[in-house]
């Protein structure tokens, strides 16, 4: 099983059925006119690193992205379905969909199939009401937050994030904050690592960045 993040399945043998995990650190931070999404790039099958340059930041619509953690298959399937639904929805609406709507579509699937899925998702984007970050953890609840961290590596940086986050940070400050959080988590969590991928979403568009090596 390929996983982004590890879960109790560490206790079974994930290599037995080839499952893949997104052993992960993901985060999203809202700033005054946009959202910074960040993720590591490691995908594991048991302890083998199946992909060391994974892109866990997935484009749902032009203005809405999501970060994936948990089972790679589950999150890819859910993201594809949500993207398809939102594409149709935005055509019917005649305008880009609200981030709130995307979060609810994700949630409806994550909640309905909660017993069969292993997916922790962070949705971030900018719509006509401004920037938003929604966190949809394992059980299928939704909560909007000014910033959100997720994945197995996030447990190592809760204290750091709480200590260093301030509301009203600028875009550049948010980017540096995201990089430092993900880097710290990668250096302690065995199932996070590789590159730090970023997506900066603003009303003008989306800028993708990659940071190679670990900034310590």
């Amino acid at each position, binding site marked *: 099983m390929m996983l982004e993040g*590890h879960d109790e399945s*560490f*206790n079974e043998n994930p290599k037995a059925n080839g499952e893949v995990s997104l*052993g992960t650190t993901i985060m999203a931070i809202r700033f005054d006119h946009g959202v910074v999404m960040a993720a590591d790039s490691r995908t594991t099958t048991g*302890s*083998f*690193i199946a992909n060391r340059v994974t892109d866990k930041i997935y484009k749902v619509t032009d203005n809405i992205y999501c970060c994936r953690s948990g089972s790679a298959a589950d999150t890819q399937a859910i993201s594809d379905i949500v993207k398809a639904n939102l594409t149709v929805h935005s055509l019917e609406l005649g305008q880009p969909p609200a981030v709130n709507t995307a979060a609810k579509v994700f949630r409806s699937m994550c909640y309905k199939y909660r017993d069969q899925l292993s997916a922790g998702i962070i949705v971030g984007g900018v719509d006509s009401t401004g920037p938003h970050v929604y966190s949809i953890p394992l059980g299928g609840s939704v909560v909007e937050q000014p910033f959100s961290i997720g994945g197995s590596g996030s447990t190592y940086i809760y204290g750091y994030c709480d200590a260093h986050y301030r509301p009203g940070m600028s875009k550049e400050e948010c980017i540096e904050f995201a990089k430092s959080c993900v880097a710290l988590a990668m*250096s302690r969590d*065995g199932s996070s*690592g590789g590159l730090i991928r970023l997506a900066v979403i603003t009303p003008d568009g989306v800028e993708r960045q990659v940071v190679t090596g670990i900034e310590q």
Partner: protein
Amino acid sequence: MGDISTYNGSAILAMTGKNCVAIISDKRFGVQYQTISMDFDKIYSVTPKLFYGLGGLVTDMQTFSSKLKFRTNLYEIKNGRTMEPAVLTKCISSMLYEKRFGPFFVQPVIAGLDKDNKPFIASMDSIGACTFPDDFVVGGTAEENLFGMSESLWRPDMEADDLKHVCTQCFLAGINRDALSGWGAVLYLITPDGVIREDIEGRMD
């Protein structure tokens, strides 16, 4: 609690060259996916020309190396000389087989020069089955990766500098594909003139 041999994570590699051997281990001490320490090397010294590395469960590594220290000390006192590599290997093998039905979860890798300065490497499983190849030996959670890299890059009769370089490259590439080992490496290059220890910087993820 799944597979006990992947609870902590480790990686060890030893290679022979021309009149020299190198043994390298990673420095991670972790508990499943959490990394506790990045300064925990897994290579122990018997003499300046004989080293062994232990992969596997850390508590058993520590206990077993203490018991082995006792045995090697006693041997030196009784025999008035240090153990030869082949003797050490058989000693370890025998100690592990004593616990055949309740084993130490360790994977020993031995590297050294014998009394004629001939390179010697050996490895065994957790119940003492030995192998004595003449090229390289691997151990730990990253062993499959290390097998592949070493098989491709090892060649016979490497000089010390070459051996160090090849060993390092194989090792770093191997551990970079293993989530449970890494966070730096330590290399011991053993030659008739002495041993050089080198701490190698690798990816810290």
